């Protein structure tokens, strides 16, 4: 199989512009002849569906939530990057491009990343025009703050609710199109499979979560915007319903899966408190603008944090990375936290935490200033931990947050299955081996508002597609398979809950395929995952029936897919013996724990082909060529 990235030639700055010109367009009067399915209503899905509706296509949008407004994009707190240079601190499209390529440890496509930086400025304009209430200065202009991995203030924000406000903006644009009738909204429908006819994606099979009805829906193109799969780790910052079903099913129908093991571990989460926890809660990275991270110099020092003098503290990020300090990128900060905790300097009852301390900032700026900046985050922290961060430093620890891996897509955001587009976190592109803060919102909206509307037109205008209806034999076959899969799950009458099995899987992934990996651990993980999968199919307990609202079945359907995806995550991690970005291979690091990349042998995207459960997948490589930046050692010192 040859992977064609379809990256246009010529100078980097004009690639997208020229490509847009060269892409075929669909005449406005002809757009109503095309049906497009969009799955997922987060930033990417809602913005894409709204844009398709505006353009005049017939859009069917699906979400498993009761409303598009619930998508997990809503939980993003800190901000969205854009190279506006409103702060006159030297920002530019090139610098945002450069920071993002470097942040991703030179494992992303140059052309995609440059396009992302280019359209970032349009996103802010678009959202402001929609009435998104971004923070403002007293002069009435937009305010900015800085974020990890950058030395300029390019992050636009709406208190600690940036994701919510951007999503509500995209949701309102979507609802406007629902009102016009161009977009048909299908809530409480979960995509369970992809329909491929003659090698082309032509539809999806869904389950109505209220009635259990299994239905096929057909279209001329299918767009997956279904988010990431960090819930594979069980404990993560992802929403509880986040799954991998849609991308995994598409993978099993032929779509290649890119960089499966690259998941971002976010450095500032509230540490886990016990064995019965369901979820980890993120504290916005923006807190690192004013909070100082420290641990005790002495090992196992369990004294009250305020009893520990300045001399007895180790502000390790400031010490090791003086030029970025507490704003070192997420992967670097996470690993540094793990190292100090593994060395016995961790704080709190479990020792698996570090302090994020605002005492200096409160002394310097006054409590009112800190309260205005972070008040809601402080309240949230207090609610969860019963400790007041105005008085005591917060305790934080890294946790699985975002997945850079996802379905492989070309420059047009189309997978290797024609007609199947993948946008936002569901695809593998743009962030490389690590994602910088405030970049996820940027990519979701860039893909939905400013990339896919053009590239999908290029596909539709340049492809001859016969009309396909849901009674097509291929649809019937996929429906039958889906029903059989559900029946098999409903027959599971063992004595362990699906959640318990999911928790076991998550622990294995966290232990061996989490913040750092080694060959031995990955081998153990592989064995354990197949044991856990076997246990699931022998000993899980699924109650209730299909023709009803059945949360146990919903969960079982999702966990069954995670149990297969986990294999690929481990396989992908094992195949890459270099360290890069979030992927630290212990065999490839400096004596002081910094990652060593191997450009000679690993400057490629892993794109995996499915060969069956328990069978080794086939690795395809998309070589990454760097024409405009020279990969260098990523130093934040």
């Amino acid at each position, binding site marked *: 199989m040859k992977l064609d990235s379809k990256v246009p030639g010529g100078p980097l700055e004009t690639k997208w512009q020229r490509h847009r010109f060269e892409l075929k367009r669909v005449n406005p009067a002809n757009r109503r002849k095309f049906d497009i399915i969009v799955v997922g209503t987060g930033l990417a899905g809602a913005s894409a569906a709204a844009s398709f509706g505006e353009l005049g296509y017939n859009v069917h949008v699906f979400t498993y939530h009761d*409303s598009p407004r619930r998508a997990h994009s809503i939980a993003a707190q800190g901000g969205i990057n854009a190279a506006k240079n409103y702060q006159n601190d030297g920002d530019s499209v090139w610098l945002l491009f450069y920071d993002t390529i470097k942040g991703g440890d030179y494992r992303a496509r140059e052309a995609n990343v440059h396009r992302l930086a280019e359209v970032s400025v349009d996103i802010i304009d678009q959202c402001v025009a929609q009435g998104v209430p971004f923070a403002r200065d007293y002069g009435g202009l937009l305010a900015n703050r800085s974020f990890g991995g950058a030395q300029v203030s390019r992050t636009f924000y709406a208190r600690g609710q940036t994701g919510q406000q951007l999503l509500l903006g995209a949701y309102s644009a979507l609802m406007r199109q629902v*009102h016009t009738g161009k977009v048909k909204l299908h809530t409480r429908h979960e995509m369970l499979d992809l329909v491929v006819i003659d090698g082309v994606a032509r539809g999806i099979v869904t389950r109505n979560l209220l009635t259990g009805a299994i239905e096929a829906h057909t279209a001329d193109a299918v767009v997956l915007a279904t988010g990431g799969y960090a819930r594979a780790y069980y404990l993560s910052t992802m929403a509880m319903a986040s799954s991998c079903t849609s991308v995994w099913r598409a993978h099993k129908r032929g779509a290649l899966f890119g960089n499966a093991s690259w998941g971002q571990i976010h450095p500032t989460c509230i540490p886990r408190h016990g064995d019965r926890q369901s979820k980890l809660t993120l504290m916005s990275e923006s807190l690192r603008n004013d909070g100082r991270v420290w641990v005790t110099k002495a090992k196992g020092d369990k004294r009250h944090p305020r009893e520990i003098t300045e001399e007895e503290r180790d502000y390790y990020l400031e010490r090791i990375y003086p030029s970025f300090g507490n704003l070192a990128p997420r992967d670097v900060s996470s690993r540094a936290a793990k190292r100090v905790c593994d060395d016995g300097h961790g704080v709190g009852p479990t020792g698996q935490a570090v302090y994020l301390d605002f005492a200096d900032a409160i002394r310097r700026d006054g409590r009112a200033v800190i309260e205005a900046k972070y008040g809601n985050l402080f309240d*949230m922290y207090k609610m969860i931990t019963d400790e007041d961060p105005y008085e005591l430093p917060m305790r934080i620890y890294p946790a699985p947050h975002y997945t850079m891996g996802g379905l492989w897509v070309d420059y047009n955001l189309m997978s290797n299955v024609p007609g199947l587009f993948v946008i936002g976190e569901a695809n593998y592109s743009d962030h490389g081996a690590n994602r910088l803060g405030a970049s996820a919102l940027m990519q979701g909206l860039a893909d939905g508002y400013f990339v896919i509307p053009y590239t999908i037109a290029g596909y539709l205008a340049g492809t001859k597609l016969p009309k396909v209806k849901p009674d097509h034999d291929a649809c019937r076959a996929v429906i039958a398979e889906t029903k059989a899969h559900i029946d098999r799950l409903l027959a599971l009458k063992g004595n362990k809950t699906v959640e318990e099995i999911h928790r076991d899987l998550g622990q294995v992934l966290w232990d061996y395929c989490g913040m750092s990996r080694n060959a031995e651990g990955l081998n153990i993980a592989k064995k354990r995952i197949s044991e856990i999968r076997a246990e699931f199919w022998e000993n899980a307990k699924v109650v209730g029936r299909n023709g009803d609202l059945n949360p146990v079945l919903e969960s079982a359907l999702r966990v069954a897919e995670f149990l297969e995806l986990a294999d690929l995550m481990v396989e992908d991690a094992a195949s890459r013996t270099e360290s890069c970005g979030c992927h630290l291979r212990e065999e490839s690091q400096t004596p002081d724990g910094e990652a060593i990349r191997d450009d000679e042998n690993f400057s490629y995207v892993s794109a995996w082909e499915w060969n069956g459960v328990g069978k080794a997948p086939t690795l395809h490589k998309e070589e990454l060529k760097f024409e405009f930046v020279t990969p260098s050692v990523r130093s934040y010192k």
Partner: protein
Amino acid sequence: MKLTLKVWRQSGPKEKGRLVAYVLDDVSPDQSFLEMLDDLNRVLVLKGEEPVVFEHDCREGICGCCGLMINGQAHGPVRGTTVCQLHMRNFKDGDTIVIEPWRAKGFPVIKDLMVDRSAFDRIIEAGGYVSVNTGGIPDANAIPIRKEDADLAMDAAACIGCGACVASCPNASAMLFVGAKISQYALLPQGQVERVARALNMVAAMDREGFGNCSNVAECEASCPKLITLSNIQRMYREHVKASWKYAPREAREAAG
């Protein structure tokens, strides 16, 4: 902690519901309320019974999915919080807790503690947006907005659409939700063009969905997890009166003085 839970069980929209008592004897004060319900469900599933259905997702207090009446209070006893952020340390060993779904004509029960809130989407569909197509937009800083106005708009925009305002109101009024959305746009220059039509259409949609009127009980404000204030309802009234006035026939306006 040992707790007795009295949980509303209702197998479908048309079925009759009832409170069923369950006893949990190993509740950790550090658990969230939803994690406590997870524990209950684990016990039920292992016994082969159907778990209690409740809506939840982000468990970070922002998606707006969760919402339960806990001892008669929307989202429970702590002010300014969602159920997922309510922790069991707010209850005492030996407590009996009554857990019910939102109760309002506009929010029919689907199953157990889950209700249908799609009416909120239909209200937004009626005008809760600024009509701009993607692309061709002026530079963001070409629309300066006074910080005070932007902050007030942000206060209103913080609504997560959970429905606690409706559930806690004796009239099942959705005016805090609708008022917040109307306020957000009324306070921003981008919202001006459609200001009149928006107020009329959203209020009409709200009435169509069967939500009641405000009688200044203020339970909505007290139960709102995002601390949205009653002033948004007042602003909504002003917007609606002004809009109606603008659309009223001239004779009617003259007759009214």
